[in-house]
C-alpha cells in the first residue's frame, strides 16, 4: 500500500512541469472561449469554473515541483471560495430564470447608458 503511494508519487513527479503548464493553459483557454462564445449563463458559469481549476492545477503542480506544500493549501482555499461563489452565482441565475423565463445573457441588457 505504502509502496503503491510512493510509486504514484514518483510517477507524478516524473511528469515534466511543462506538461502541466500546457495542459492548464489549454484548460484556461477552453474556459475563456466558453465564456466569450456561449450565451447560456450556466455554461458561462461552468467555463469560469474551468478557468479557476486550470489555475488550481497549476498551483498544485508548482507546489510539488518546488516541494512547498503551501501552494496546495492555497488550492483548498480557492475551492472553498469557488464553492461559495458558485452558490451565489447559481442563486442569481435561478432568480433571473424565475423573472425572465430564460438564462440567455443577451436578454439581460436593460442596465445600460
Amino acid at each position: 500500500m505504502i509502496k503503491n503511494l510512493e510509486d504514484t508519487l514518483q510517477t507524478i513527479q516524473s511528469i515534466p512541469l511543462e506538461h502541466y503548464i500546457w495542459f492548464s493553459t489549454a484548460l484556461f483557454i477552453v474556459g475563456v472561449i466558453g465564456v466569450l462564445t456561449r450565451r447560456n449563463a450556466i455554461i458561462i458559469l461552468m467555463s469560469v469554473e474551468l478557468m479557476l481549476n486550470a489555475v488550481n492545477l497549476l498551483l498544485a503542480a508548482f507546489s510539488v515541483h518546488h516541494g512547498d506544500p503551501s501552494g496546495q493549501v492555497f488550492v483548498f482555499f480557492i475551492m472553498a471560495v469557488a464553492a461559495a461563489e458558485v452558490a451565489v452565482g447559481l442563486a442569481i441565475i435561478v432568480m433571473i430564470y424565475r423573472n425572465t423565463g430564460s438564462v440567455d445573457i443577451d436578454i439581460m441588457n436593460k442596465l445600460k447608458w
Partner: protein
Amino acid sequence: MIEKSWLIPLLPFLGFLINGLGRSRISKKTAAVIGSASVLCSFILSVLVFFELQGSAETGVTVKLFEWIRAGSLQIPFSFYVDPLTCVWLLVITGIGFLIHVYSAGYMHADQGFGKFFSYLNLFVFFMLILVMGAGYAIMFIGWEGVGLCSYLLIGFWYKNDAYNDAAKKAFIMNRIGDLGFLLGIFLLIATFGSTDFTEIFPQAAGFQSGDGRLLAITLCLFIGAVGKSAQLPLYTWLPDAMAGPTPVSALIHAATMVTAGVYMVARSNILYALSPVAMTVVAITGLATAIFAALIALTQNDIKKVLAYSTVSQLGYMFLALGVGAFTGAVFHVMTHAFFKALLFLGAGSVIHALHDQQDMRRMGGLKKAMPVTFLTMLLATLAISGIPPFSGFFSKDEILAHAFSRDPLLWVLGFAGALLTAFYMFRMLFLTFWGDFRGTAKEKQGIHESPASMTVPLILLAVLSVVGGFLGIPEVFARQAHLLGGFLAPVFAASQEVLPAMHVPHSTEWILMGISVLGVLVSIGMAWSLYVKKKRVPAEDTVQRSGLVAWSYHKFYVDELYQALIVRPLDALSGFFYRVMDKRFIDGIVNGVGSTILAFSSTLRLLQTGRIGSYLFYMVAGIILIFLLNYLIF
C-alpha cells in the same frame, strides 16, 4: 470697583442679547425698560469708577481679562484700561446714552421695529464702551469696527427705503477707507513697539526723537482712521447722509459719541502725536479746513437735520484743530460740551420732527415757539451754547481751543474765529426759521402740532441743564486759578506730551481781548441772522430755484458728492462693468463652461460603450487582461 469695570460694557451687551433674541416676544415697554436700565446701570458703575479713580493715587488701572492673541513674540491680552480719559468718555457715553434711550422710548413708540431698535442701540453702547475701555489699539479696533457696524445698522434702520440703505452703505464704505488706515497704523505700531498695549507703547515712545519717521507714519495712518470715523475732510460726506437714521441715532451715534472716537484715539495717542510735529500740523489743518468748509455748507441747508449734521462735522473740525495745536484737554472738553448741546439739538430737532409728523424741511416750519415751549427753550439754550455765548458750555470749550490756536499761530485763530461766526449764523438761522415767524406748513400739520411726551422732554431738560453748566468744568486761568477741573483731572494722561510740546503762552490781557472779539463777533452774527430771518422774514428759496455764486456752491455742498461720483464712483463703475462683461462673462465663464462642455461631449460618446450586453463586457474584460499582460511583457 475698577477691577469690576468689565461690567460696564457687559450690561448693555446683555440688554442687546435679551432685546435682540426676544424681540418678537418682549413687549415694547419691557424692551424700553431693559434697554434703558442696562445703560443706566452702566452709568452708575461709571460714576463709581470715576470716584474711585479720583480718590486713588494711580493714573490708570489695567484690568486683564484673558489672553486673546499670541503669535510669536506678539501678545495681545484682552484687557481694559481705565484712566481719567476713559472715565470722561465712559460718563459721556453712558450718561447721554441713557438719556437718549429714554428719549427713544417716546420717539419710537409707534415704530414696528421697536425692540430691534433698542437692541441695536444697546449693541452700539457696548461697542463704544469697548472702544474707549480697550487697553490697546487692537481692543480699540474691535470697538471701532463694532460701532461702525451699529452705525450702518441704525442708519439703514428703515430698511424699506432704498435711499436710507444707500446712506448706510455709504457710511460703511467711507468708514472702511479710514479703518484701513487705522489697521495699517496698528501694524506699524506692532512692528515698531512689538505690542499694541498703551502701557507698553507710550513709555517706549517717549524715548523717541521728535520728528521720528516711524512715529510720523504711525500717526498719519492712525489719523486716516480718525478722519473716516470722525467725518473730517475728505471723508466727511457720509455723516450728512447718515441723518437717514432715526433722530435719536443721529443724536447718540452721529453727534455725541461715535464720531468723537477719532478724537479719543488721537487724544489717547497724544504722546505719539506730540513727537510728530508734521502730523500735528496735518491734524490742525484738516480740522480747521473741515470746520470752515462744513460751516459754509450748513449756511444754506434747509433740512433741519442736515444743518445739524454739517454743524457736527464743523464742530468735530474744531476738536481736531484743538488736538493739532496740542490742546488735548481742550479737545476732550469740547467733545464733552459738544456731546451735551449737540445731542440736545438733535433731540430737540427730533421733537420738532415728531410733532410735525416727519417733516424735516425748515421751510415748512416756523412759529413753533408757542406750541412747543419746552423744546423751544431747551433748543435755544443749546444754540446759545454752540454759538459760544458766555456762560454757556460751548463758550468755555471753544474759547480754550481758540486761545491755544492763537498761541500756535494767530492765523489759525482768525480762521477759527471766522468759523465760529458762521456757526452762530447758521445755528440761529435754524432756530429762527423753526421757532419764529408764522407756521408755513399745511393746515392739517398745524392742527397736529403738540409738545412731546415727558419721556422726550425730560431728557431735553436734563441735557439743557448740562449744556448750560457743563462749561464750568473747565474755567480758564483768566477767570480763576486752578479752576479747570477737567484739566486737573486729565493732567496725568497728557503729562508726557505736555513736556514735549511748547507751553501755551498767551498773556491774560490778550486772552481777554480775544474773548471779547469772539463774543462780540458772535453777537453781530446772531444779529444778522435775526434781521434776515426774523425782521425781514426771509425764507430760503425752493429747491427748484436756480441759485448763483457762492450760495449755489454752498447749497450744492460744494459739489463734493458729485466730484467723488465723477472721480471715483464712475471710473470704478466703468472698470467693474468692463471686468464683468469681458473678464468675467467672456474669459472666466469661457474657461469654466468650456471645461464643462468638453467633458459633456466626451462623455456623451463614451457612455455608448455601456451597452448592457454582458457578452461584450466579458469581451472587454478579457481583452483588457490580455492588454495588461502584453504591456507587462513589452515594457518590462
